[in-house]
């Protein structure tokens, strides 16, 4: 049986490390499955579930809120983001930091609030899907 080394790391901690049989992740351009011997690949991940099958056939689900997937000949790495990232959310954070610096008390921009809520919703939906997938697995 062929296996490969998988590391899932985020900036804050190491989430998973071990040898696995295959993995399925949500790439920015669609779902993708990685099995041993996959060509070197680098792609962005969308928030979603990473399905990991180890060599006993045991399936584990991990939730990542976006990040990078890197496939090397024998090692695969997922550089997971710690939170869902959207440009306007990042922008909102930047504006908040600037405002803190200016210590100016202005009204909250409603557009920022909206995009923040939208990004949070997208993350919640993806999390829900992960939970459902886990439930289905447990139910079997």
């Amino acid at each position, binding site marked *: 049986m062929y296996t490969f080394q998988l*590391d899932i*790391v*985020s*900036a*804050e*901690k*190491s989430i998973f490390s071990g040898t696995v049989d295959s993995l399925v992740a949500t*790439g*920015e*351009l669609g779902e993708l499955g990685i099995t041993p011997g996959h*060509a*070197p*690949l*680098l*792609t*962005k991940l969308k928030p979603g579930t990473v399905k990991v099958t180890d060599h006993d056939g045991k399936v584990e689900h991990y939730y990542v809120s976006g990040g*990078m997937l*890197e*496939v*090397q*000949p024998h090692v695969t*790495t997922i*550089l997971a*983001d*710690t*939170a869902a*990232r959207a440009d306007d959310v*990042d*922008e*909102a*954070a*930047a*504006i*908040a*930091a*600037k405002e*803190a*610096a200016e210590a100016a008390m202005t009204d909250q921009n409603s557009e920022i609030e909206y995009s923040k809520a939208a990004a949070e919703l997208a993350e919640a939906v993806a999390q829900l899907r992960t939970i459902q997938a886990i439930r289905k697995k447990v139910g079997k």
Partner: protein
Amino acid sequence: MAVGKEIRTKIGSIQNTQKITSAMEMVAASKMRKAQDRMEATKPYAEKIRGVIGHLGMGHTEYKHPYIIDREVKRVGFIIVSTDRGLCGGLNTNLFKDALKSMQQWQEQDVEIDLCLIGSKAAGFFSRFGGNVVAKTSHLGDAPTVTDLIGTVKVMLDSFDEGRIDRLFLVHNEFVNTMTQEPRVHQLLPVEKNEEDELKHHWDYIYEPDAKELLDVLLVRYIESQVYQGVVDNIACEQASRMVAMKAATDNAGDIIDDLQLIYNKARQAAITQEISEIIGGAAAV
């Protein structure tokens, strides 16, 4: 007995202070261990991402990302990481001293400076000292998340992208061991090429969607992880430094109590002696 009432009150108050400092010492010791664990946990990500960027750079030598190119310096940015609370010895003061020294070197070359401050001590210091503060964040707590830092880092990255600053530095304390914490001024942008990272074997990836876009994201994540590491490192330093400072304070309080106790005993003895001699003197007169 009325003798030495003031001294006894003084001893009491110092004992109370001693209790507080020794409690703070113990709290800092346990927090330090947790902070050190967190520090270790951030390392794999930084190593992996550095590896990926190295590979990308090797595969795509013709594409030079702006974050890699050195350009003429007209204005520099400093991200200064400080603590939120005091009572941690000379930790912040030493850091600010180093930061100012390095800022002065730039000012002598007529280079202007933008500041980005993390932690309320830095905010307090630079509001008194002056400086062009463009972004600020504080009260991140003992377990900060990358999310807390995205905003401040983005402000600096945006000004780099737009050409307002030409270099970006990170100033934070580095945890050497419990007794030693060293201020570090570390260049974030342009990313310095690490010669040790030379790869023995190399291959090109399949890129989805394309290499430039991926490199953009990777470099931003890399800078963010560097700043995050700096912040986590600084927290470990804060706790270690506080532990040492509070241990010293507890010991000093003990010394003062001993001294006061001696003075108190002497005064009490003197009072008794005086009383006895008065009684004897009185008895002899009768």
